[in-house]
């Protein structure tokens, strides 16, 4: 039932200022769509790293697409600190709302369940909590008293963006065990999913594929983007391209180097050929 749209049309459907949820580099970010958002000149995006952010987030920040980021970390993993994120924090041009991983999951799970808040243990004594006036500490009503616990508000992203292995004829998408993407899709108003390929049939009719499937009811649009997670790994489809990320980390240390990288990899010939 779902007809794939183009990557550029998908990027155009993300409005400036949207709250955009992204999975981290170990869980199927759509780097292809991030590059398309850079090409369309998106502005004022508010990113949510679920629960941390990586390559795609650093790229969007460097290209000036991002006003705010809420995340538990931004990192390029083995390639070190995220250079454009670090530069933006130093420059004070990026609002950073620091979080901690299970709090991101909890806020999304609250949205997934349609409840206004959910409790979480830990956090008390952390400055993360001290800097989050939107988080409340309440007394556990199931204790005899004197048991403070953090209540986190539901967080409903405007758009969930991730990359899946494949979509079927019904618009269901399959991404295996990376179920945080399901939670993100459930919690968000819209889900934009890039896939390697579209295949016939219905994953939900296949007991082997159904468990790793996200039902089309949560999927707003699908776009085909071969190697759309690259340089990030995609399950057993392709591996992590450490050389590509290391090259990015080196070039993106400076504004000029980042601009050159963008010209070559996002706006340039090579980018056009790859997509």
């Amino acid at each position: 039932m779902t007809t794939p749209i183009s990557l550029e049309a998908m990027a155009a459907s993300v409005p400036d200022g949207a709250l955009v949820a992204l999975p981290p580099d170990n869980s199927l970010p759509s780097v292809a769509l991030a590059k398309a958002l850079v090409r369309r000149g998106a502005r004022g995006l508010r990113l949510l790293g679920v629960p941390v952010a990586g390559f795609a987030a650093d790229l969007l920040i460097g290209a000036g697409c991002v006003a705010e980021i809420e995340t538990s970390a931004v990192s390029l993993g083995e390639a070190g600190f995220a250079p454009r994120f670090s530069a933006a924090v130093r420059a004070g041009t990026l609002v950073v709302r620091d979080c901690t991983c299970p709090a991101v999951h909890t806020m999304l799970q609250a949205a997934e369940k349609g409840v206004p808040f959910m409790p979480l243990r830990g956090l008390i004594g952390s400055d993360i909590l001290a800097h989050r006036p939107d988080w409340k500490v309440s007394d556990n009503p199931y204790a005899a008293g004197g048991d403070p616990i953090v209540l986190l508000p539901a967080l409903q992203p405007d758009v969930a963006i991730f990359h899946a292995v494949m979509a079927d004829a019904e618009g269901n998408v399959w991404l295996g065990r990376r179920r945080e993407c399901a939670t993100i899709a459930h919690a968000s108003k819209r889900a934009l999913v890039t896939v390697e390929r579209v295949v016939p049939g219905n994953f939900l009719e296949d007991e082997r594929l159904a468990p790793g499937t996200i039902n089309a009811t949560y999927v707003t649009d699908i776009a085909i983007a071969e190697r759309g997670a690259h340089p990030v790994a995609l399950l057993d489809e392709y591996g992590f391209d450490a050389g590509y990320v290391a090259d990015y980390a080196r070039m993106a240390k400076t504004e000029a180097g980042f601009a050159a990288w963008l010209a070559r990899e996002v706006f340039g010939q090579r980018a056009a050929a790859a997509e």
Partner: protein
Amino acid sequence: MSGIKPEERLAAALARLILAPDAPPARHIAVGAASPIPAAACWLLRKAGHPVRLSLLHRRSGNPFTEGTRELFDLTGQGRIDLFFLGGGQIDGQANLNLVGTGAWPGRDVRFPGSFGSAFMYAMAHRTILFREEHSPRVLVERVDNISAAGVNAPGVYRRGHAQALVTGKCVFRFHPDRARFSLLSRHPGETVESIRAATGFGFDIPDAVPETPDPTPAELALLRGPVCDEMLETYPEFCARVFGRSEARAPAAE
């Protein structure tokens, strides 16, 4: 024994802390991507026959979780994670951890990647071993600039565990949550109480006798350089090449 690499000593020291008889049992250990040395310590236990379950969070193949990344935190919330490892850009004398950055919030001087799950894991794992190779006044400070995860909490705040120890490139500290203070447990070869004190920004207790951190046994070294290295090659190829002189036989995974 000559030729012992510092990383091998640290791995063996961590393994001994994991098995410390006065610590609660370590049936299930989760290991993050941060450092290969804790992973080597855990594999050392496994290869020595201890029936510990390892959840290696960033292993590419065989990721242990099928609910996404929330499963680690849920597992820990359930009380099923006996031991976790944490580090920090700054660690202070009360075992507070700073993974956010130095200077004003949120790290306007030097921004670190961020807190990850530390604010939860530190409180909800049954125990945590702190690990940071760099032992300097820059890292081990009197008071962290920003607290990602608190070393201790006020009475009444629910908390399942605390830091057991802090292992650095110079020594092993034991942490005492009752008095929110470290004591020196052992010094690595070549270090003295004074050299350690000079490199440490926080005050700590010094017992009458501070033994040297023992060498790994020949059996431990053989395990580290053989079967432990075999297990770690996929995830930590650079580490294995540097420490064990081994390079992966297979082609790199990137296509």
